C-alpha cells in the first residue's frame, strides 16, 4: 500500500539518497574508516569485485609474494591524483600503514595488521611489506584506504580536521557531513577509474529501523537497509526492489569451557542438535538467512560439506541421558547434584540477538536444559564471559582466517572478545596455524575443513544462523548487486558498494 509517487526519489537519476543505520565515527582511514574496502572517498591498494575476488586499485596489479610468504611488493598505478590535485605516490602508502601502526594512533583495529614488520617505499611507485610471519590472507588486508601524507601528516591523527574533512583518491568527494543527519558526496570527475554516472550520493543516517522504513515509504529515500519484517512491506512494491545480501554474519552461542554445565561435552553436543535452526531462519529472520553450523556459511566455497547437523531432539535427549544427566521433577536435568542450567547473555537493545537467545533457551528447555536469558551491556557481560554463555555475532567474508583464528585458537582464550568460550582443541589450533601459514589453496581448504569437522564433534559454540542483509532500493538504476557482507556492515556494504558504476535505467 505504498502511496503513489512513493518511488519518486529525492531528485533525478544522477542523484542517490540512501539510508544507513550507523554512521562512521570518523572518516579517517588512519583511525579505521573503510578498512574493509568500498570507502567511496578513498581507494585501497587492492579492491574486491562482486565475487569478493581481489583486484587491483591503486596498485597496478595483485602483489608479488615472495616464496617464504613474508614479502609483498605492490607496484602502484601512475598518474593517480588526490581530489585536491596532489599526486598520489608510494610515500602516501607508507605513511598510511606506518601511522596506523604507531602507538599514538587511536586505531582500534590495528590487530588486523599485526603481521606487518616493515613497510617501505622503493622509489615512487613500489611499496614492499615485510611480514613477521608467513600470513596467507595478508593481501586481503590491503583493501585498506590510503590517506594523503601531505594533508593528514600535518595534523594530529586522532582529532585533526582530516578526520571529518577527508581528502582521498576515491570516486567520490565528501561535500558535507552533518553528524547524526547525513553524509553527502559528489562524484570525483578526475577519478582514475572514470567519473561515476551517479553524480551525487547522500547517505542519510537514520538509526531507527521503523523510521527508516517510514521515510523510505514517504519517498525521501532511494534505498535503505531494513530488517526482514519491514522489508516484507515493500515486497509488492513494483517501483522498488529488495536485495538480499549473502553474508558471513553469524549468530552464535558461546559455551564456555569453564562452566560446569556448558563445559560438559555431552551438554554441548546435545545443545548443538537440539536447536531448530530452520525454524529460527524461517521465523526470526523471515527466511532471510541460513542455518549456521560454523563461521563459514553453507554456500561458501570454504564450507566443509557434510558438517550440517539436523535438528534432532531425540538424539539430544539420548546423548544427555547417556552422559548421566537425568531429568528432575521440573523437567530440568541434573547430574551429580549439578543442575543443567546456565545463564545466556545478550546485548541489550539488540532485538535479533534477543530473539535468538529466547529461541535458543526455549529449544534447550525441550531437551531438559534450563537457559536463563539475561541482558546487559558489554561492560556487564565482559567480566562474566569466562563462565557464562553469550549470544555473540561476527563474520568476515574475505578470508576464513579472519574469523576463525581469533575465535577458535586456544591461545586467544579470554583475550578481549576473541575466543570468548575459551575453546581449546589442539587439532583445531594446529589446523588454524596451518591455514594461515600456507599459500597453497588446497592445503588451506583441507585445514579449514578439519576445523569445521572438529567443531561438529566438539562444539565450543552453537552456531545458529547466518543473517542476510536486506536492502530496499528504488528500481531506477542498472548495475546493482550485493557483495558477500561481513558482520559489521557500514557505509561500504549494501547494493551501493559500487554506486560509482551504477547507470541510470533506460526507459
Amino acid at each position: 500500500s505504498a502511496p503513489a509517487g512513493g518511488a519518486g526519489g529525492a531528485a533525478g537519476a544522477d542523484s542517490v539518497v540512501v539510508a544507513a543505520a550507523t554512521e562512521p565515527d570518523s572518516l579517517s582511514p588512519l583511525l579505521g574508516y573503510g578498512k574493509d574496502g568500498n570507502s567511496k572517498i578513498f581507494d585501497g591498494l587492492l579492491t574486491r569485485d562482486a565475487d569478493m575476488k581481489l583486484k587491483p586499485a591503486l596498485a597496478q596489479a595483485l602483489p608479488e609474494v615472495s616464496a617464504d610468504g613474508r614479502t609483498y611488493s605492490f607496484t602502484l598505478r601512475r598518474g593517480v591524483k588526490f581530489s585536491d590535485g596532489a599526486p598520489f605516490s608510494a610515500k602516501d602508502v607508507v605513511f598510511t600503514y606506518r601511522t596506523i601502526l604507531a602507538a599514538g594512533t587511536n586505531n582500534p583495529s590495528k590487530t588486523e595488521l599485526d603481521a606487518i614488520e616493515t613497510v617501505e617505499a622503493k622509489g615512487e611507485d613500489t611499496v614492499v611489506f615485510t611480514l613477521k610471519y608467513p600470513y596467507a590472507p595478508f593481501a586481503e588486508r590491503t583493501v585498506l584506504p590510503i590517506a594523503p601524507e601531505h594533508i593528514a601528516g600535518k595534523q594530529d591523527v586522532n582529532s585533526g580536521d582530516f578526520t571529518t574533512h577527508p581528502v582521498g583518491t576515491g570516486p567520490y568527494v565528501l561535500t558535507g557531513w552533518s553528524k547524526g543527519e547525513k553524509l553527502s558526496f559528489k562524484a570525483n570527475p578526475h577519478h582514475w577509474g572514470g567519473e561515476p554516472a551517479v553524480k551525487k550520493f547522500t547517505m542519510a543516517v537514520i538509526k531507527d529501523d521503523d523510521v527508516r522504513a517510514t521515510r523510505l515509504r514517504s519517498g525521501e529515500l532511494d534505498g535503505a537497509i531494513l530488517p526482514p519484517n519491514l522489508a516484507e512491506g515493500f515486497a509488492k512494491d513494483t517501483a522498488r526492489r529488495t536485495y538480499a545480501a549473502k553474508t558471513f554474519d553469524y549468530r552464535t552461542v558461546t559455551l564456555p569451557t569453564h562452566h560446569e554445565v556448558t563445559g560438559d561435552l555431552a551438554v554441548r553436543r546435545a545443545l548443538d542438535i537440539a536447536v531448530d535452526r530452520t525454524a529460527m531462519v524461517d521465523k526470526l529472520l523471515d527466511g532471510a538467512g541460513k542455518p549456521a553450523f560454523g563461521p563459514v556459511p553453507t554456500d561458501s566455497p570454504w564450507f566443509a560439506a557434510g558438517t550440517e547437523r539436523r535438528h534432532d531432539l531425540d538424539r539430544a535427549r539420548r546423548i544427555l541421558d547417556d552422559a548421566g544427566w537425568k531429568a528432575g521433577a521440573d523437567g530440568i536435568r541434573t547430574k551429580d547434584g549439578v543442575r543443567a542450567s546456565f545463564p545466556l547473555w545478550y546485548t541489550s537493545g539488540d532485538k535479533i540477538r534477543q530473539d535468538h537467545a529466547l529461541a535458543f533457551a526455549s529449544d534447550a528447555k525441550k531437551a531438559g536444559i534450563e537457559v536463563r536469558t539475561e541482558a546487559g551491556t558489554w561492560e556487564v557481560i565482559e567480566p562474566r564471559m569466562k563462565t557464562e554463555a553469550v549470544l555473540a555475532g561476527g563474520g568476515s567474508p574475505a578470508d576464513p582466517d579472519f574469523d576463525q583464528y581469533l575465535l577458535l585458537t586456544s591461545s586467544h582464550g579470554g583475550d578481549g572478545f576473541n575466543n570468548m568460550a575459551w575453546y581449546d582443541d589442539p587439532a583445531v589450533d594446529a589446523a588454524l596455524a596451518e591455514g594461515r601459514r600456507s599459500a597453497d589453496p588446497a592445503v588451506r581448504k583441507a585445514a579449514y575443513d578439519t576445523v569445521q569437522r572438529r567443531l561438529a564433534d566438539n562444539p565450543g559454540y552453537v552456531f545458529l544462523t547466518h543473517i542476510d542483509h536486506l536492502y530496499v532500493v528504488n528500481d531506477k538504476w542498472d548495475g546493482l548487486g550485493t557483495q558477500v557482507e561481513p558482520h559489521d556492515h557500514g557505509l561500504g556494504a549494501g547494493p551501493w558498494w559500487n554506486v560509482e558504476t551504477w547507470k541510470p535505467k533506460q526507459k
Partner: protein
Amino acid sequence: MAGRRTLSAAPVLLAVTFGVFALAALSPFDPVKAYAGTAGLTASQAELDQLRINLGVDRPLVARWWDWLTSALTGDLGTSAVMRQPVADVIAERVGWSALLAACAFTAAVLAGTVLGVLAARRTGGPLDRTVSALAYTLEAAPAFWLALLAIWFFSVRLGALPSGGLTDAGSDTVTFAQVASHLVLPALVLGVSQLPWFFLYVRQGVADALAEDPVRGARARGLAERRVLLGHALRSGMLPMLTLIGSRVPELITGALLVETVFSWPGVAAATVQAATSVDFPLLAALTVLATGAVLAGNLLSDLLYGLADPRVGFDG
C-alpha cells in the same frame, strides 16, 4: 536577584562538572570500548590498553577533572573522543539547531498548554476538558518515540505534506530558511506535544481552582466579561505553578529533545548527549552538561523572576 543568582551559578557549575566526571567514572560504561566500537571486539587486550593510555582515561578522576577545568577556563574544551573532533567545534556546529528546535517546541507547548488549559478549566468535566485531559495523560504515557513515528506516518507518508527528517532535504546540500522551516515543523511539533501535558494540566488545575475563589466571584460581580475573568483573573492567579514549570521542565525538554533529534536525524547537540554519556566521553559530556546547566539555571531564574512579577506576595531571594 539576577545578580546574586549569576554568582551562585559558579559553585553549581563546579559541582555539576565534577559530578559529571564522577558519575561518568563510576558508570558501567567503558570509554575505551565505546571508542573502539565493533573493532574493539577483535582487538587484543594490549591494543585496548594502549588506547586507554592514548585517550587519557587511565588517569585519576580528580586529575582529569582539574585538567579539563583549567584548560576549559582558558578556552580549550578538549577533544571529543566519540566525535573525533574538538568539543568546541561539535558544540558550535550543533547547539544552534538544538536551541532552535527546543525554543520552538517549548513556546508552542507553553502557549498551547495555556490556551487549552484555560478552555478546559472553564468547564471542568465538560466534553472539551474530558477529551483534552484524557489526551494529556495519554500523551504523557506515550514515549516521544511513538509520537514521532505517528507524526511521520501521518504527515509525511499519508499526507505527504511535510518532510520527515533531517535539517534539509536529504539530497540537498545548502541550508536555506525555507528548507529548515519545513523540516523543523514535525520535530518541533512532536517535542512540543510531548511537553504539553504538564503545562496543560497545571494551567487547568490552577485556573479551575482560582475560578472557585472569591476574587473571581468579585470580578464576576463587577460585570467583567467571561474572557476577562478567565484571562485577567483566574489565569493570572492560576498560572503561577505553570510559571515554575517553565524553569523546571527544561531538563525534561532536553531529554525529550534527545529522542526527537535522534528520530528525526536532527543534527543538534542533544542527540550527542546520549552518545557522550554512554561512551563516557568526558570532555564532550562535561561541555554538554555545562550547556545544560546554563539552560536549566537560566530557565529557573526566568521562572523565578516571572513568578516574582506575577505574584507580588512572593518574596524570592537568592
